[in-house]
């Protein structure tokens, strides 16, 4: 199986060293969460993994190929990327918006039967067929998030990279979207890489967690290990306690850790 691998990535934005030598390998069929405090470089790492930002130093490999050596269209067929706070500029209908996900695949003739079938499948797996004809600007936050997810799935990518995909969703939708990630990873062997702020969700839905702090990898491993209290204390400066609840392990945030 081919992984997505970043090695020794450095990115500087203005006078801030956002990534200072990040190395990690992401595996297909897994959900990997990138966690870390604000400004730790999570989003920047995700755009580098998506092949959208060339690191100043270091490499990103997809199945042993340099991601920046791929033609943009070829790259887009393999990797779907959902930015944080995605923009929808025009009042198109839901089906048209999901169809945009086929752009890397379509030839000069426009959307064909294959593309239509892929769009229909993506809408079915995101559970949005019931409002296929609605104008996207009239959707609620939860509906909108699922439509954008369907847009990413329509391209039938090998990798789904999503920046804060659960932010702004109520707990019900969060679990629904997380279940969709799980289905993608399990059924299609898709590699799912997401960034999250919610430690509970990270613990609950990830196969692996990579914790970033100040542009470096602080921890990389199974959720319970990577999100252990000592690591959280160092990354976020908070005191936590972990215990077993009814639906798995729970992280309780006790308070801000006193400055050392």
């Amino acid at each position, binding site marked *: 199986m081919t992984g997505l691998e970043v090695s020794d990535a450095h990115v500087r934005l203005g006078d801030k060293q956002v990534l200072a030598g990040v190395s990690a390998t992401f595996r297909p069929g897994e959900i990997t969460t990138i966690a870390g405090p604000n400004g730790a470089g999570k989003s920047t790492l995700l755009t580098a993994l998506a092949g959208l930002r060339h690191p100043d130093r270091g490499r990103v490999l997809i199945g042993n190929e340099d991601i920046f050596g791929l033609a943009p269209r070829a790259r887009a067929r393999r990797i779907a990327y959902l*930015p944080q706070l995605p923009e929808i500029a025009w009042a198109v209908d839901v089906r048209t918006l999901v169809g945009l996900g086929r752009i890397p695949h379509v030839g000069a003739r426009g959307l064909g039967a294959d593309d239509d079938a892929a769009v229909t499948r993506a809408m079915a797996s995101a559970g949005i067929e019931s409002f296929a004809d609605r104008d996207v600007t009239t959707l609620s936050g939860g509906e909108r998030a699922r439509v954008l997810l369907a847009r990413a799935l329509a391209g039938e990518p090998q990798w789904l990279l999503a920046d804060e995909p659960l932010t702004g969703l109520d707990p019900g939708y969060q679990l629904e979207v997380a279940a969709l990630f799980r289905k993608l990873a399990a059924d299609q062997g898709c590699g799912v890489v997401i960034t999250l702020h919610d430690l509970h969700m990270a613990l609950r839905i990830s196969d692996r967690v990579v914790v970033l702090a100040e542009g470096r990898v602080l921890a990389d491993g199974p959720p319970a290990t990577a999100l252990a209290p000592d690591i959280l204390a160092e990354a976020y400066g908070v005191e936590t306690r972990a215990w077993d609840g009814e639906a798995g392990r729970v992280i309780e945030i006790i308070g801000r850790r006193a400055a050392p």
Partner: protein
Amino acid sequence: MKTCPRPLLLALLTAGLALLVVVSLSAGKVWVPLEAWFAGANDPGAIIIFELRLPRTLLGIAVGIALGLSGAALQGYTRNPLADPGVLGVSSMAAFGAVMTLYAGAAATMPWMLPVGAMIGALIGIGVLLLLSGSASSVLTFVLAGMILNTVSSAGVALALNLSPSPWAVNEIVNWLMGSLADRSVDDVRLALPFIAAGCVLLLTIGRALDALTLGEAGARSLGIRIDHTRLALAVGVGLAAGASVAVTGVIGFVGLVTPHLLRPLVGARPGALLLPSALAGAVIVLAADIGVRLLPSAAELKLGVAMAGIGGPFFLLLLIRLRRRTA
């Protein structure tokens, strides 16, 4: 609003355009009956049609297509329903470029200098616009950048008028600035058409990139769109199409603003699907307005640019009010 099936929409626009072409060739101070078309080269009716009205009609179509398409492409790229070569100052920069060649007297001896000047002006205008505001800017940045360009270019034109060597040159510049299709010759058509055609072909190639930009710049790039290529095609396309249009007809504003806006609900708002219908509808609007000014019973013919500003100004206001209501 219900969307209209694309073949039907295109067929309706084409039929409307064909009808207007026939009217445009017949209508005016002198009505030329259809028989005159076949009356032979020496018939006065045939002379009116082929020498006066045919160039005028062809230019009307070409300029309408150029402006409608430029407007649709600019709105799609900037994701801003207020974008238009006129509002964003591209047209007035083209006019500035053209006026400089008139002022220098170069246009009198070398007629090709005027469109070249206009296109250089338009290219500089759109280049500055894209530089000032990037591609992911708010409505406000764009309109402000356009305002700066409009101010600079009108100051330049005023300067040229101010320093003009003769009243005759002033007269020529002012007349030309107002924008009109009247008294254009086959030479004007020959001068403008290749550039307008090249610009339009270029603009028609960026439809898919404009669709992808519905998801913002990051979204479009993640779909494999080369934004740098799109931006270049847009700049050169609008520069050529709008620049060459201004070169032969002066400034005709608001066509690029109004046309895509009217059609957007009919095509389901997808920016790529808006390009071709906007081009056709631009031609329909310009031709209809030109027939209108010809038929107005006024002593001196109303200039087309003035008429369009008269219609477009209130439309722009209405658009702003509606935008405000939506964002309020």
